[in-house]
């Protein structure tokens, strides 16, 4: 008997790392990994050494020193005596405000424009085409600047509202004043203020706000229970009970009771001194940024919605029509639920884009995180690397959170393959 080693198990020689196909790919992966790591180490090392050569260290202690500057819009209490960290948080909240408002509005605009572009009405369809093409093909920064310029140049200054014969007047029963600095809107006040929940760090939530949120969430759950009950009755008896008045009641009556209990009322803005006071002054920077982001992203979302609807085969709508469904119900019950599967994934990236694009805010003086942490703080402290890294971390975290949330939503609406 001749001695033969098993065919799949030859003795290992180093040259096999290159000539043997079983090992070759692994060899190259290890080499590339080592090279990438070496390059990364070299970059970090180079940066650290160069910072040292410039006499700069790398630390984040500047975040705890006094900021010393004021911010026009502060969702949480902030004065110039607060720290740079708090200024960064204020900036982050401003970013979130404009991003969330923008995402909501852009979705509405996008869905309406996308559906309307497919309309059989020639004029509406063409108008939407013009809107989509105009906004998609001009840089966002220009839209932000032009919207802001319109507000600044066209609206009257606050002192135009002064005097016996003012050149400008408030609208909506003297409740809203459009000026070239801000839109003054009424604020809400209570005669029976329940006080606030103190979360520390001077962040407070009014108990009334908490009560309203609790009542709304509770109402939503009760509404779902009513719906489930109606479904059960329909399954058993074949006829569905009328529930719309119950749903309406659980959603509104508790809120109305709370409004009555707290004595909630509106305080209209009033021109005193240089500016309107008493009400809430919504800066033009925020409105311009929000409007521009909404219209710009809305144009992209419109195209996504249109693509999603077109992806649903024509047979589906023909079948729905054959069953006697009207066009509106066909859209709501047959086409949109299927189109959503195609729409949601690209919609996620539009939300991410909008959030990241909000960093153009400083162009209109809106102090988002790029304006506070990446603007004034960076400048006053000279900590470029730290501030930029922090901002990158914040935007990355925000994007990942949006992405995760939308992915969960997507997995709920996507086609269930069984």
């Amino acid at each position, binding site marked *: 008997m001749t001695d033969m080693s098993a065919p799949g198990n030859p003795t290992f020689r180093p040259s096999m790392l290159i000539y043997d196909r079983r090992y070759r790919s692994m060899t190259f992966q290890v080499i590339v990994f080592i090279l990438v790591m070496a390059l990364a180490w070299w970059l970090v090392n180079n940066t650290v050494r160069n910072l040292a050569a410039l006499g700069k260290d790398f630390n984040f202690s500047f975040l705890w020193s006094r900021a010393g500057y004021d911010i026009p819009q502060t969702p949480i209490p902030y004065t*110039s005596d607060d720290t740079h960290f708090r200024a960064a948080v204020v900036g982050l909240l401003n970013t979130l405000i404009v991003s969330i408002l923008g995402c909501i509005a852009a979705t509405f605009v996008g869905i309406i424009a996308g559906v309307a572009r497919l309309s059989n009405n020639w004029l509406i369809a063409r108008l939407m085409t013009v809107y989509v093409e105009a906004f998609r093909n001009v840089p966002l920064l220009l839209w932000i600047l032009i919207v802001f310029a319109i507000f600044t140049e066209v609206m009257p200054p606050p002192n135009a509202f002064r005097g016996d014969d003012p050149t400008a007047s408030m609208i909506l029963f003297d409740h809203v004043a459009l000026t070239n600095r801000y839109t003054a809107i009424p604020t809400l006040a209570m005669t029976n203020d329940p006080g606030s929940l103190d979360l520390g760090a001077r962040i407070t939530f009014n108990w009334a706000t908490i009560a309203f949120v609790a009542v709304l969430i509770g109402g939503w759950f009760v509404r779902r229970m009513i719906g489930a009950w109606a479904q059960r009755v329909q399954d058993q008896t074949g006829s569905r009970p009328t529930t719309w008045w119950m749903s309406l009641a659980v959603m509104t009556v508790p809120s109305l009771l709370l409004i009555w209990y707290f004595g909630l009322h509106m305080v209209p803005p009033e021109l005193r001194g240089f500016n309107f006071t008493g009400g809430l002054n919504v800066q033009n920077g925020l409105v311009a940024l929000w409007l521009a982001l909404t219209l710009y992203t809305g144009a992209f979302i419109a195209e996504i919605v249109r693509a999603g609807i077109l992806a649903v085969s024509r047979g589906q709508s023909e079948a729905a029509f054959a069953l006697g469904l009207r066009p509106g119900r066909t859209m709501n019950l047959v086409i949109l639920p299927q189109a959503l599967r195609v729409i949601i994934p690209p919609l996620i990236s539009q939300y991410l884009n909008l959030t990241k694009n909000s960093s153009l805010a400083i162009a209109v003086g809106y102090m988002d995180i790029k304006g506070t942490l990446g603007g004034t703080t960076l400048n006053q402290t000279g900590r470029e690397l730290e501030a930029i890294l922090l901002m990158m971390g914040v935007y990355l975290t925000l994007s990942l959170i949006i992405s995760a949330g939308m992915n969960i939503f997507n997995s709920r609406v996507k086609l269930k393959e069984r």
Partner: protein
Amino acid sequence: MKTSIFLGTVAATTLMAGAGMADTLADVKARGELNCGVNTGLVGFAAPDANGNWTGFDVDICKAVAAAVLGDPTKVKYVPTTGQTRFTALSSGEVDLLARNSTWTFSRDTDLKLDFVGVNYYDGQGFMVRKDLGVTSAKELDGATVCIQTGTTTELNLADYFKANNMSYQPVNIDSNAEGEQQYMAGACDAYTTDASGLAATRAAFADPENHIILPEIISKEPLGPAVRHGDNNWGDIVRWTLYALIAAEEYGITSANVEELATSSQNPEVQRLLGVTDELGAMIGLDKDWAKRAIMASGNYGEIFAANIGEQTPIGLARGLNAQWTQGGLMYAMPFR
């Protein structure tokens, strides 16, 4: 795509390595050109004219340094910088010298690793308002909307001033002087605040300067001066003594017109040392003996530069005030050339 970004980063980091340990004088000489950081456009201090030539009070400092170092006041590359980018431009090595009405403060001198070599304009922060607003004092600005450039000392002074006087205000953050002008003219803010000299320069560019007033309150000290990177002391000395040479020249009556004549005829030993007739002061800072003479010839002495760009005969119309020579009751005081 990924590779190119990667290589770009590598290149950028390597470039930074160069800036850290450079000998600026040798670099400037090898380049044959001085990179000078200036304002993006502030009439009288630094602004390009109709032909694209930079002129102004700060620009003349650049010219004097270029003349002293390179022998030619035109060998300057002007790099426009905003309030936000100026210090990064300097510390990254993009400019050799920052002559951009920047305030000398403790933290900039120490923590930002800059060296302010002197003061070429003693300024203070003021407010400009429309005349028809009826405001005559900054104390009456309670509740006003104020336009303010971000990243400046004025932003901090503004917060401090209103706080100290127990007043409130609404800031409108802007990025550059041009944007501030536009917002102020549109009435988006009641008052515009920056250094008083900057206000005068901004107002001079208006179509109706007579309808705007600069309020009497000066709320801060703003010593403006040229800055260099920390750590290259020889280069700092060159810029510092070029500035002193211009100031001393005014004190001793040396002008761009008579500098050649005085170099041969003056019997004043200080003038002789300054102009390189006796002693070799230039060699001590790595230059030749005529360095100061060329600096003065570039645009004249300090008084000439002031009068030509921002003085009372110009549209900006600033009085010398604190910026007069010490012999005239001002603060301009050149250290002895000895």
